[in-house]
């Protein structure tokens, strides 16, 4: 039997049989389902514990009062400012908004509270003040309140993807959510499984089994077997996660929406409200349904495998050079830096400028492309860019594997030696 295959089998089965593998396999889908249920729950119910803002209006302009929103409730106060301020001092949940007399002339609004007010609270207040001020100005200009109420345009954009095959509904939100989740998953798993490769090699080195093994197989076969074996463990875990999450989600959805679906069927008027409420939850499901899984999943697998092969080879080289986990730090930095950089860039820059030249390069260069390309996917990536990126990724992991193998074959036989980057360079140059 092929020896690399034997190594792969050992690496795979010793890990899959571990209890921690089983635990992770079942725990993560539970977490995903938990979050999913929470999202639907929140979408249906809305948040709780909404702060109430007491409004002390000295200007007398805002007689119509403020509208309660999901994140804030308003209450007109009859107290004076001083009384209201005392209340804030005594009650840590109280918010008091003071509107000065000269608000129309540019006076400052003040919000008093013990805790810092959240961004949504402040922006809601600002929106409403602006709106009401605008209304007042319009009324002053001679438009009566009734006309004003009638001019309340309410539009929302329905995005449709138009291609040669026709148009279809798309939800860029859901697609982005899935792509970002994929990018985060790749980022985390590159670390998790890369470090497993490194640990595995350190274990073989410190337990001194490595010399026995490489008298039977070539160091390259051992390294490759380990990388592939652990990669397969990762893929197995993903597959189990997807299957478990999907089936659990199906069960959960069925339970949550069962009565509502029945309500729709029987069309009973008393339950119409409940149906309306559940629409948001249904929307979320529909949105997930619009994601092109057949497009994203294969690309996710390709970029995960490519990125994993590329980085795990580097992790393998590090593992071979040191004698213990604690010595890995200096060598880890050059590996973690590009990953961290891409991760930060992905969610701050690429998201906002998916077609800029920096985004293009990040999604083409093999060291950054596995994460950056995932983030760019929902915005549409030309076929030639995808092909180029994948081709370079394959080239990239062949290169890193080659470099790593040259360091690895020397490193695994070096015991008790403090190693520098210069030393690694020397190992790389050794013959045979």
């Amino acid at each position, binding site marked *: 039997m092929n*020896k690399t295959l034997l190594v792969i089998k050992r690496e795979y089965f010793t890990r899959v049989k571990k209890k921690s593998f089983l635990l992770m396999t079942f725990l993560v889908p539970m977490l995903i389902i938990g979050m999913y249920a929470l999202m639907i729950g929140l979408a249906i119910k809305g948040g709780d514990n909404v702060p109430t803002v007491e409004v002390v209006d000295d200007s007398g302009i805002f007689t119509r009062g403020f509208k309660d929103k999901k994140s804030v409730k308003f209450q007109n106060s009859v107290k004076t400012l001083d009384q209201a301020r005392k209340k804030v001092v005594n009650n840590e949940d109280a918010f008091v908004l003071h509107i000065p007399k000269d608000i129309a002339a540019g006076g400052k609004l003040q919000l008093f509270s013990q805790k810092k007010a959240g961004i949504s609270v402040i922006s809601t207040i600002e929106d409403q003040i602006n709106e009401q001020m605008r209304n007042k100005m319009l009324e002053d200009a001679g438009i009566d309140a009734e006309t004003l109420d009638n001019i309340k345009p309410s539009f929302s954009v329905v995005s449709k993807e138009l291609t040669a095959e026709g148009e279809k509904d798309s939800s860029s939100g859901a697609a982005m959510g899935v792509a970002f989740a994929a990018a985060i998953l790749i980022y985390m798993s590159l670390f998790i499984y890369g470090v497993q490769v490194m640990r595995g090699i350190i274990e073989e080195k410190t337990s*001194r089994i490595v010399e026995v093994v490489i008298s039977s197989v070539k160091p390259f076969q051992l390294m490759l077997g380990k990388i592939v074996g652990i990669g397969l463990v990762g893929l197995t875990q993903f597959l189990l996660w997807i299957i478990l999450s999907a089936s659990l989600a199906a069960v959960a959805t069925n339970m949550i929406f069962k009565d509502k679906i029945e309500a729709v069927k029987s069309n009973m008027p008393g339950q119409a409200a409940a149906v309306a409420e559940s629409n948001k939850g249904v929307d979320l499901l529909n949105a997930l349904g619009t994601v092109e899984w057949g497009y994203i999943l294969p690309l996710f697998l390709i970029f995960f495998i490519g990125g994993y092969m590329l980085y795990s080879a580097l992790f393998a080289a590090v593992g071979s050079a040191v004698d213990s986990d604690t010595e890995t730090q200096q060598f880890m930095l050059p590996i973690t830096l590009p990953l961290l950089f891409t991760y930060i860039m992905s969610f701050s820059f690429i998201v906002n400028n998916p077609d800029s030249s920096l985004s293009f390069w990040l999604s083409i260069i093999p060291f950054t492309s596995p994460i950056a390309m995932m983030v760019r996917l929902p915005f549409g990536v030309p076929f030639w860019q995808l092909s180029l990126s994948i081709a370079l990724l394959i080239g990239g992991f062949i290169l890193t594997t080659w470099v790593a193998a040259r360091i690895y074959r020397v490193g695994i036989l070096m015991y008790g030696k403090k190693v520098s980057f210069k030393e690694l360079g020397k190992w790389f140059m050794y013959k045979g």
Partner: protein
Amino acid sequence: MLSIRNIVKQYANHRALDDVSIEVEKGSVFGLLGPNGAGKTSLIRIINQITAPDSGEIYLNGEKLNPSHISKIGYLPEERGLYKKMEIGEQMLYLAQLKGLSRHDATERIKYWFEKMEIVSWWKKKVEDLSKGMQQKVQFIATVVHDPELIILDEPFSGFDPLNAQVITNEILELNSKGATIIFSTHRMESVEQLCDSIALIHRSKKILEGKVKEVKNRYRSNTYRVGFTGQLTSSENSMFTILSSTSDNNDTHLTIKVGEKYAANDVLKFLIPQVEVNEFMEVIPSMNDIFIQNVKN
């Protein structure tokens, strides 16, 4: 059986092996000797194809060394270990299969050895549950499980207690009597005298001594004898020998003498017998230990 020809291995700052050539006969027990850092392990790794020489060649049974020979060699490294969290049986199966045995053959061979070593009950145990001596038995089995023609043992006795060392020694000799060629490197010169047919001594990357143990010892005979007698030696002045050391207790005297080049042992005896009652006369043959130290010091 194994022919090592002009091996050179250069590392960045030093030369580990400098034009080393060694012949190992089929069926022999060969001792590879040398102080720490002499290049023994480098040479052993080259024979095992773990590293490649910069120049020189190695032939096994007349064939140039190639990957197909891996299954014919069993190697017990000086730095040896096992996967700590793996079951012993599984682990043995893995290592045996890596040496080219089928799963079926591997199982049979491992069972044979486990019975022989009386460790059948260990099959499901994990390595971390075994003592160090137990682990070494397992490692030894891993070395010989595929019935290799050539067994290479690097410092096999380091860390063994005397009892286990004896068990392993007996196994080595038994394998040798069944036709396996054995190379082992060691510092323990008494085990060299006990086990080896031939030796090679490597010092500072060069081979400085090679040959059958008897021949080598003969080469280092210095015509020195140990004499014990009762009585008084009337004329201690003579041209036949010089006294290197002497101790006397009452009437008994012990001398260490170096006999002159022109004379033989019998000449000395002829000279002594008329004068004293000789009760001991023995040639002082240098031990391997002496030869080792003498060579390495120079």
